[in-house]
C-alpha cells in the first residue's frame, strides 16, 4: 500500500516535471519564428504543442535509455528506489523553475539526468551511476553539438543572404518566413519524441521499481504515453515567454533568413545525432544555432547573455544533482519507503516553486509583448539595416 501511494506521488511529480519541460523548452522550436514575425506567439505555441503531442508517440527508444541507461535499474528496484526517482524529479523541477525565473534557456534533459545521478549517489553510492556513459552519451556530444550547430547555422545564414541578394529583400524575407513555419514544426516534432519520452522513461523506472514492468521486457504502457504527451504539450501551449524572449531576441537580432537557417541547422543536428545514438539537449543545440546565425550575418552577438546560458549549462547536472541528493536525504530522515518523507519533500518543492513563480511575476513577459506579426518584411529589413547591437525586445 505504501509503495502504491509513493508510486502515485512519483507519477504526479513526473507529470509536473513534464509540464515544466514543456514550457521551459517551447522556445527551442518557436522562438525564432516568433522573433521574425513568421507566426503569432499563440499560434506558434499551439502548433508546437500539437506536434509535441504527436512526437511523443513516435518511438520509445529514448524512454528505454532513460529507464535503463543512466542508473542501474536494480537500484530503482531496491528498497527506497521510488524515493530516488522522486528526489531526481524534484531536483530537475527546481532547476527548471530556477532557470525559467532567470530567463535562461537550459537543458531539461540534463536536469533530469543530473537529478537521477545526484539521488542515486546519495542513496546508494557512486557505483550505481555510469559516469563513463554520461560523459560519452551526454557531456561530450552536448559540447560538440553546440559548435557543430553554430557552424552549420553560420554557413546556412551566409548562403541564405547570398540568395536574399538574388531574390530581392521582400520576396526572400516573406519566403523564409513561410520556411520557418515548416522548420519550427519539425523541431517541435523532434522535441516531443525526445523530451516526452524522458518523462516516460522516469515513470517506467518507477514502474520497474514496483514490479509493474520488467526491466528485461521493457515497454511503456499506453496510459503513460498519453499522460506524458498531454503534459508536455500542455506545458508547451502555456508558453515559456521569458525563455522565448531570451532565445529569440536577446542573443542576437534575428531576421527570417537567419531564423530559417538556425532552425534547419538545429533540426538536422538533433535528428542526425539521435540517429547515431547521441541524445542531445535541444535547448543547447538551438542556442548554438541562433548564435551561429548571428555570426553568419556578421552581426553583434550578445555574448553576456550567451555566457549566462553556458554557465547554466555547466551548472545544470551538478546543481540538479545536489538538489536531488538533498531531497533524498530529507526523505531518508523519515526512513525508507516513508509516505511522510515523500510528502515532506513534495511540500517543500511546492513552496519553492510558488516562491520562484512569485518572483518571476515581477518581470512578467506575455505573448503580446513578443508579437511581431505586424512587422512587414520591409520594416524587418529596415530594422536589420539600422541595428548595430543585439537589442533585447523585452529586457
Amino acid at each position, binding site marked *: 500500500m505504501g509503495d502504491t501511494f509513493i508510486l502515485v506521488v512519483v507519477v504526479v511529480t513526473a507529470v509536473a516535471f513534464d509540464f515544466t519541460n514543456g514550457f521551459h523548452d517551447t522556445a527551442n522550436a518557436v522562438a525564432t519564428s516568433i522573433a521574425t514575425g513568421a507566426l503569432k506567439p499563440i499560434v506558434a505555441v499551439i502548433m508546437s504543442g500539437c506536434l509535441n503531442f504527436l512526437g511523443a508517440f513516435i518511438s520509445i527508444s529514448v524512454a528505454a535509455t532513460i529507464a535503463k541507461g543512466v542508473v542501474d535499474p536494480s537500484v530503482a528496484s531496491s528498497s527506497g528506489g521510488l524515493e530516488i526517482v522522486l528526489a531526481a524529479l524534484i531536483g530537475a523541477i527546481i532547476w527548471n523553475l530556477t532557470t525559467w525565473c532567470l530567463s535562461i534557456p537550459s537543458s531539461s534533459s540534463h536536469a533530469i539526468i543530473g537529478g537521477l545521478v545526484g539521488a542515486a549517489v546519495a542513496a546508494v553510492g557512486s557505483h550505481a551511476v555510469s559516469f563513463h556513459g554520461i560523459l560519452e552519451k551526454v557531456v561530450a556530444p552536448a559540447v560538440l553539438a553546440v559548435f557543430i550547430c553554430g557552424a552549420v547555422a553560420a554557413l546556412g545564414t551566409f548562403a541564405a543572404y547570398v540568395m536574399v541578394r538574388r531574390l530581392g529583400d521582400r520576396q526572400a524575407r516573406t519566403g523564409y518566413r513561410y520556411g520557418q513555419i515548416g522548420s519550427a514544426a519539425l523541431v517541435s516534432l523532434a522535441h516531443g519524441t525526445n523530451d516526452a519520452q524522458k518523462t516516460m522513461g522516469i515513470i517506467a523506472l518507477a514502474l520497474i521499481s514496483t514490479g509493474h514492468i520488467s526491466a528485461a521486457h521493457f515497454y511503456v504502457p499506453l496510459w503513460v504515453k498519453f499522460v506524458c504527451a498531454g503534459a508536455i504539450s500542455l506545458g508547451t501551449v502555456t508558453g515559456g515567454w521569458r525563455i522565448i524572449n531570451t532565445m529569440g531576441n536577446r542573443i542576437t537580432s534575428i531576421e527570417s533568413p537567419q531564423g530559417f537557417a538556425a532552425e534547419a541547422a538545429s533540426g538536422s543536428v538533433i535528428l542526425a545525432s539521435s540517429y*547515431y545514438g547521441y541524445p542531445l539537449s535541444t535547448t543547447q543545440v538551438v542556442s548554438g544555432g541562433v548564435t551561429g546565425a548571428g555570426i553568419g550575418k556578421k552581426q553583434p552577438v550578445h555574448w553576456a547573455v550567451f555566457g549566462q546560458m553556458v554557465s547554466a549549462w555547466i551548472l545544470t547536472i551538478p546543481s540538479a544533482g545536489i538538489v536531488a541528493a538533498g531531497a533524498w536525504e530529507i526523505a531518508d530522515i523519515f526512513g525508507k519507503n516513508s509516505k511522510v518523507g515523500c510528502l515532506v519533500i513534495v511540500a517543500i518543492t511546492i513552496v519553492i516553486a510558488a516562491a520562484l513563480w512569485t518572483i518571476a511575476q515581477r518581470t512578467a513577459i506575455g505573448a503580446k509583448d513578443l508579437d511581431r506579426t505586424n512587422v512587414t518584411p520591409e520594416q524587418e529589413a529596415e530594422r536589420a539595416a539600422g541595428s548595430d547591437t543585439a537589442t533585447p525586445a523585452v529586457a
Partner: protein
Amino acid sequence: MLLFGDPIIDWSDILKIVIAALIGGAGIVVIYGFLLLGLKFAGVGDTTGETHSEGSKMTGYALAVICGLVVLGVIAIGIYAITQKPS
C-alpha cells in the same frame, strides 16, 4: 578525445553527423532559396508588375517543383530518422 585511456568520442560518428547537418542544415537553406528563386522566375507573388516570358515561367515552376520535392524529401528523411532512434 581520451579520458583515462578510453575513447569517449567516436569521431567517425561525429563526422557523419557533421555531413548530415551540412546537408540538412545549410543544404536545405540553399535548396529552399532556389525554390524561392524559381517562384520569382515564375512571377509568383511578384508585386512589381514585371512581365515574365512563358519560358521563364516554365523554368521557374520546374525549379520550384524540383526544389520543393527535395525539401519535402529531406523532411521525410528527418521524420524517418526520428522513428529509427537507437535505444
